């Protein structure tokens, strides 16, 4: 989960998120260097003695400052498109979970191996145990196995919501009347948090998502089905 005053991305829990972090570092370095160049150019404008305002015909410079940004954009676009298509790969998911957004809670359906359906409400502050996270912990977590491709089908019962888990690199809109799909494979066990990411009313900030990722062997023993 995020810690206080965190600016950067959370640690990756899926291969896609690892790729996104790599791409983020790549784009940020390019952005940093461009900003550095622009700041230097601004500094020069403050200290220049050049006052000729009739400069024209700088063909070489204009060619350079057209071609160079095009090259930079290609250098950014190619890895970006690679990751974009990687997120759309269908990798034969072994489990399908449905996530339905409501005002202001989530409903999860495990219908592959039985008919488990439950709601996931944020724990009100009065009900928090010591160690629980305020505005993040829920009464019923989504328990999933690691190292198994999982398909999430996301929709909404009422207004727009968005099911987001930053550490997995997931954010998918929950749209009433539409079924959106996202797939992921978690690489390490743990408890991971996300929050609704589409404004949906008064309690938009109070409908978090909590995933509890456990080893496949333990998941197969059926802890999630003892609710």
């Amino acid at each position, binding site marked *: 989960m995020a*810690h206080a005053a*965190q600016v*950067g991305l959370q640690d990756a829990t899926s291969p896609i998120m690892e790729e996104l972090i790599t791409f983020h570092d*790549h784009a940020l*370095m390019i952005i940093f*260097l461009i900003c*550095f*160049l622009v700041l230097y150019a601004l500094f020069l404008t403050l200290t220049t003695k050049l006052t000729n305002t009739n400069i024209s015909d700088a063909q070489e410079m204009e060619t350079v400052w057209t071609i160079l940004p095009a090259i930079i954009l290609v250098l950014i676009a190619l890895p970006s498109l690679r990751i974009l298509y990687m997120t759309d790969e269908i990798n034969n998911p072994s489990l399908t979970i449905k996530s339905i957004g409501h005002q202001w809670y989530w409903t999860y359906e495990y219908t592959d191996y039985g008919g488990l359906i439950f709601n996931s409400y944020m724990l009100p502050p009065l009900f928090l145990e010591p160690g629980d996270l305020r505005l993040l912990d829920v009464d019923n977590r989504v328990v999933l196995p690691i190292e198994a491709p999982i398909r999430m089908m996301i929709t909404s019962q009422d207004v727009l919501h968005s099911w987001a888990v930053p550490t997995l690199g997931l954010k998918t809109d929950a749209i009433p009347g539409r079924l959106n799909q996202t797939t992921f494979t978690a690489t390490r066990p743990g408890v991971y948090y996300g929050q609704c990411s589409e404004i949906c009313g008064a309690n938009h900030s109070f409908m978090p998502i909590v995933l509890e990722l456990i080893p496949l062997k333990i998941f197969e023993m059926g802890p999630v089905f003892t609710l």
Partner: protein
Amino acid sequence: MAAPPEPGEPEERKLLGFLDVENTPCARHSILYGSLGSVVAGFGHFLFTSRIRRSCDVGVGGFILVTLGCWFHCRYNYAKQRIQERIAREEIKKKILYEGTHLDPERKHNGSSSN
């Protein structure tokens, strides 16, 4: 990468207060070499030409080019290394899962080499 510092651990230092060069692979290496390249290029140009402003321009250009060059070179090698690590991890996993069975990768490899 994004975990908060544990008590007792030295506090993270960020370049200019927000650039996390310590935890970003290749960033510290690229910026250090870029700074060195900038100083060498700018100072070298000044020694030859005695032009201050132009030497500063060369220094800035040198910083950008050297940083970018080191960055891409290091990231390319880092990506290759990650791919090799992933392949090694998968092979180790396969070996552990299938050792002694007909799917054992080592048995397949020995069988093909003896044929």
